[in-house]
């Protein structure tokens, strides 16, 4: 077992709206080990992106706040940090890349300057030397002719290249953790695979730990070590990838896996989970998945199911997992 680098415990994020306070993330806990790739999976609106942003304390709106919980980085709770200390965490301990590399790069600044600017700011290096470092970073993310490309502008790159630039910029100050928010969603399938391979390569070379936020179980299957499944702001299941994909212990995860397109499954026959994810202003009592669950019973509606430890690394928030596994509905075949 390698060392824990990040631990999120009972994280609660709220949104203040005109009609009251909504809870967007409700008691999420997980941990990240050195060199691990953790997949944070869920539908849009499940709170997975928000969780990623909450770790950097960069919530997208001023109306949102971390209400409760701890985010421990190498043992230190960063929710207690002031803004100045928090800034040193961003980029230097934890880097982040985003879904849409086009809009997340400044259109009027050369990519070299954008990669170099945090080096210049934090290490006080003069422009020239920081650009040498930027070129080296571009080389590490497999961009040909790095020294020449330094003076290009983002619009002169393809989507995949822009994502590489964003990765280079995020890693400029050598963070140990990278949060990748849907890094391949906006890209072509072939480019997707290249970027994922690049991320895995960087993990090897730099000992990086990665939180990969995605809705795509295919991406998870290719890259992750561990998976955490989120639904309507709660964590439903957490397990090593193999256990989760081969023997999930939650009906929601089962539905997700079944609805993935794959070999031998014609698109029109894909099963889907009926209904929709509830809105934050109208969350069901008890288990949040129960209105859409084929196996829900009175108890599921009445009380919130705890995240139960099944195995050393496997947790599920379904109170009926034992029965359902016995009936061969859930669990390893």
């Amino acid at each position, binding site marked *: 077992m390698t060392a824990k680098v990040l631990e999120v415990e009972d994280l609660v994020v709220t949104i203040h709206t005109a009609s009251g306070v909504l809870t967007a993330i409700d008691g999420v806990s997980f941990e990240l080990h050195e060199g691990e790739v953790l997949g944070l999976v869920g539908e849009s609106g499940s709170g997975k992106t928000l969780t990623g942003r909450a770790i950097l304390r960069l919530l997208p709106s001023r109306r949102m706040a971390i209400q409760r919980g701890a985010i421990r980085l190498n043992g230190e709770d960063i929710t207690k940090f002031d803004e100045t200390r928090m800034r*040193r965490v*961003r980029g230097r301990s934890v880097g982040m890349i985003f879904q849409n590399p086009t809009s997340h790069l400044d259109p009027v600044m050369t990519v070299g300057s954008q990669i170099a*600017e945090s080096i210049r700011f934090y290490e006080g290096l003069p422009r020239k030397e920081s650009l040498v470092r930027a070129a080296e970073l571009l080389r590490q993310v497999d961009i040909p002719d790095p020294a020449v490309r330094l003076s290009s502008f983002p619009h002169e790159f393809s989507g995949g290249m822009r994502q590489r630039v964003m990765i280079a910029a995020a890693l400029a100050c050598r963070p140990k953790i990278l949060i990748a928010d849907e890094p391949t969603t906006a890209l072509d399938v072939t480019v997707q695979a290249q970027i994922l391979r690049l991320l895995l390569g960087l993990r090897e070379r730099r000992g990086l730990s990665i939180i990969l936020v995605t809705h795509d179980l295919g991406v998870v299957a290719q890259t992750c070590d561990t998976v955490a499944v989120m639904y309507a702001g709660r964590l439903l299941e957490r397990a090593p990838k193999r256990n989760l994909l081969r023997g999930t212990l939650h009906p929601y995860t089962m539905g997700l896996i079944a609805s993935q397109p794959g070999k031998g499954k014609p698109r029109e026959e894909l099963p889907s989970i009926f209904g929709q994810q509830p809105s934050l202003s109208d969350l069901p009592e008890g288990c949040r998945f129960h209105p859409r669950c084929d196996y829900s019973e009175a108890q599921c509606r009445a009380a919130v199911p705890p995240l139960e430890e099944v195995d050393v690394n496997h947790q599920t928030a379904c109170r009926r997992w034992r029965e359902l596994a016995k009936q061969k509905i859930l669990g390893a075949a």
Partner: protein
Amino acid sequence: MHRFNFVIFRPIQMIPVLFGISLITFILIHSIPGDPIRILLGPRATQEVIAAVHAQYGLDKPIYIQYGYFLLNLTKGDMGRSIVFKMPVLALIGERITATLFLLTYGLVFALALTLPLAIIAAIYRGRFPDHFIRLVSTVGLGFPAFWLGIMMMIVFSVWLGQFPVSGYGRTFVQHLHHLFLPSLTIAIALSAVLVRNLRASLLVEMDSDYVAACRAKGLPERWIFYRHVIRNSLIPTINLLGVNLGWLIGGTVVIETVFSVPGLGSLLVSSIFTRDYMVVMAITMVFACAIVIVNFIVDIVTVALDPRIEL
């Protein structure tokens, strides 16, 4: 540097526009009531002399030939003679243009000095008191008649406080600065109202953009992000607006020069109307139009330099 190729080609495209400007000016000159030669020669000229001068200027020829003469004269730098100043119009314009350029530049510097801090403060304090206040003031400022504002400033700063002269231009550079302080401040206030509203709006858009979030994730402080990324992106639309508003700005200087008796092109234009020195009026109109064409060209160059995405 192929993006800057238009610097060579654009002047060629500008030719039809300049042509159109000359045509409109020609039509205006021709629509002036009365016979320009009669006015030029004065009331005592005999019929024969008038006819002779008509022939000399080609005024007895068909209208399109006259337009040809007009264009030919323009290429020789001949815009006619001023009957009041008894000199070529072009030379007269040359004498007066420095004051106007000085006033415009001075006003523009003032306008930027007002606009940048106000828009930035409003954007930073979005939705709070400073923002509301600046928005209110700039909306009210949209309706400020420049000539009235100039007179009010004269009353306050010159008459009551005795700080600045009410008219004139001075001789030295420092005197220019002193004399043109109130006129250029007046222009700047009127212009800033438009610019502040625009810059604030684009600052707000840019502050919410994704690359700002990415910069925050890189650990850069807000100040750094604002001054190195947000401002530069926001200035692009505002500089374009400045180009669009240039015509309006020149209109403003015409009035302001009259209010403060600045010996520039604008006051010359207005006084020439009353002295019926029509060639001067039309020549100045044409010079202003050409100036706008050229400045818009410069604005395009600046925009391309600021925004690497734009290809012209």
